[in-house]
């Protein structure tokens, strides 16, 4: 047990300090566990949740092909046109679109799509881009918490707890919607000076209209492959429909995602090749997950996680209190550490905890974990990958968002979203 814990903790330190690539850390950790005989090779292999890996791979392929089709650029340009250069509309529309995209695409892809055009629009109009970027980062994490495919912790939880795509939406829409409204509302109030409409400022209005014309020219000036875009949209839509009808189809979400990717590849052979698409799969991320699954299994096999589970269950008799412990510990930890290793470790803990519970109660443990892990990631710049990517994109354009600068705005808002989630969990546990 001690060796497994030591290997896990050392790996965690390397992951936090980023001295080595995350994938190298977890795969090396996993190899060490096998070499030291803590896990048999077959045990290690069987502990990899290939459902999750296939889901991630399928979505990555779909995203890569979608990006090549320029559908996202087309959409961003259309949205920019819709706003007519109104800073408040840019703020509102782009934040809502970020939340929506994040629910169905991965958060990092969503940020890569929306942040550059937001910067182009706001910088072009001499408006401070920071409220927009921070808002988009937060909404990407909040939106991603809504669905099974929106955020990696949810993918892990959905796979382990056999929760469907629809169950995530049905059970989480309330706290997520409340969080979206609260975050947008509060950000609007605190940033009003920077996002208020400019209809009474002729110079700014002229600048924004010139900029919109330029953006339209830059995008519409390039030849658009209409059939490529249409096929991409259609198959993306069908894939999401597949997720919604998952139970009726009797297929796992991973199979649906991979099927979507294959159909898209077949339909767009003139525009993309399998070889190109495969090279764009984030293999380090998949390897990271594989290594993590093996390391989490080692902790489970040695009885450590059973110990953790009994500590939590003995900490309190009150089920509601237990849910809040899970929610807030997931939330706080996710603010400062990568939430994926935490969720990977908590999954066997919760699996153990729910053994003697009625299903309608047990499922709340998963929702508490999902909400805490996904929403907590908003608290600091390092809390989620989307945060790091968003602020890096900003830095490239000389927009510096410091750790404290981000936290000053995001941390209180994150606490508010966790409070909403707590209210929801308390309500559900008492119904």
């Amino acid at each position, binding site marked *: 047990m001690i060796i497994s814990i030591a290997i896990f903790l050392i790996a965690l330190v390397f992951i936090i300090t980023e001295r080595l690539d995350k994938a190298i850390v977890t795969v090396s950790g996993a190899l060490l566990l096998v070499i030291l005989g803590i896990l048999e090779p077959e045990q290690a292999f069987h502990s990899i949740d290939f459902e999750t890996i296939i889901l991630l791979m399928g979505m990555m392929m779909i995203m890569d092909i979608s990006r090549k089709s320029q559908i996202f650029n087309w959409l961003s340009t259309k949205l920019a046109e819709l706003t*007519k*250069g109104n800073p408040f509309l840019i703020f509102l529309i782009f934040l809502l679109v970020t939340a929506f995209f994040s629910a169905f695409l991965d958060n990092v892809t969503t940020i890569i799509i929306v942040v550059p055009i937001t910067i182009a629009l706001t*910088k*072009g*109009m*001499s408006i401070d881009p920071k409220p927009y970027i921070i808002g988009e980062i937060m909404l990407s994490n909040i939106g991603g918490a809504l669905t099974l495919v929106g955020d990696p912790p949810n993918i892990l939880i959905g796979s382990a707890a056999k929760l469907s795509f629809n169950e995530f939406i049905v059970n989480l829409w309330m706290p997520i919607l409340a969080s979206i409204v609260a975050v947008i509302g509060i950000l609007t109030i605190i940033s009003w000076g920077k996002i208020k409409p400019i*209809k*009474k*400022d*002729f*110079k*700014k*209005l*002229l*600048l924004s*209209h*010139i*900029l*919109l*014309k*330029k953006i339209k*020219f*830059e995008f519409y000036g390039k030849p658009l492959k209409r059939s490529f875009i249409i096929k991409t949209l259609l198959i993306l839509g069908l894939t999401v429909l597949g997720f919604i009808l998952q139970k009726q189809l009797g297929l796992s979400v991973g199979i649906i995602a991979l099927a979507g990717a294959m159909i898209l590849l077949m339909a767009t052979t003139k525009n993309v090749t399998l070889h190109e698409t495969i090279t764009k799969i984030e293999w380090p991320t998949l390897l990271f997950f594989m290594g993590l699954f093996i390391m989490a299994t080692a902790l489970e096999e040695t009885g450590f996680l059973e110990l953790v589970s009994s500590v939590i269950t003995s900490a309190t008799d009150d089920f509601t209190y237990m849910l809040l412990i899970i929610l807030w510990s997931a939330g706080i930890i996710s603010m400062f550490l990568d939430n994926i290793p935490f969720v990977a470790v908590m999954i066997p803990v919760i699996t153990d905890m729910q053994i003697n519970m009625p299903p309608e109660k047990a499922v709340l443990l998963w929702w508490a974990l999902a909400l805490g892990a996904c929403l907590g990631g908003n608290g600091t710049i390092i809390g989620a990958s989307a945060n790091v990517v968003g602020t890096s994109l900003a830095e490239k354009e000389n927009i510096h968002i410091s750790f404290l600068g981000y936290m000053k705005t995001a941390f209180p808002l994150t606490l508010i979203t966790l409070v909403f989630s707590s209210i929801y969990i308390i309500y559900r546990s008492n119904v």
Partner: protein
Amino acid sequence: MRERLSQLILEMESQLGTRDMVEMILDALLDTIEDFNTKDDKKFCNQFDDAVKDIKNTRPRIGLLIEDFHDIWNEIQKEEHCKKHEKNACAKCEDLKKAIKRKVKELKKKNREDMKLINKNTEKEIKKGDTILLHTHSHTVIDTLKAARRKKRFSCIVAEQQYEKTMALIRELHKSKIPFKVVPEHMLSHIEKEVDKVFIGAVTLNSFHSVVSTPGTMAVVSEFKGKAPIYLLMGTRKCSFWKAKEHHHSRKEQELKTHCDRPIKYNRIKFSHDRVPLEMFDSVITEKGKMTASQMLDFYKKEHRKRSKWRKAFF
């Protein structure tokens, strides 16, 4: 705002050429007056004046843009003057907006008509079988070639310059089915004998009597002076009828770069435009016809004198 506007204008001029950029800004002005929310007439005039001040002082200054905005501003002054004269009141916002829309429509029509005349005048100079060297991203030059292609067979050599500009030129020539080949601008000495004519576009002609043009133009013009006729294609409205200063028509940008495989840092300095003395050109084709460089210079001096009141009021 001025700095941001300058940057935007520079990028757009590089992508679109002067004429199309100005047309785009005029369209943006129409959208702006639609969306501008005020019923306070004085506020409208003051804010419009403020915006025009920024347009006049961008770096680089764009002659055609300033000329057009001066005409619009003049129209507003007339509208204001009429109303004051009539009832000692300010012109209403709606009237001012209508005046701007009317003037913008007029200006766009004038620019299009001027372009047709330049096409017609240039077409006369192109002979069947000519090989025309292009070092430009001017849409004036591209449009004249497209128009001429309908009636005559000729080919082009594209002097390869900044990547995006070269690609844009290639795209247009290909679309118009004009045969062409591309030669890097520093290797033109090898194809001198093939060139029958050189076509150059311009951003403006300034008070130093220099033609402001895409970077690299000076080298190309110097190379071909005396070897092939060098034509400058530009509308007369592009001229800058004010006293130019060094920084008015070119921006200098400096960036610190690192050698590709050695730890050597160096400064790389770029300039947004070249300035070529007018007398380097053999002919200038405008909407008024073909002129020699000295005829163009006389025209410029005459118009410059005529606009002294314009300058006092506007600048």
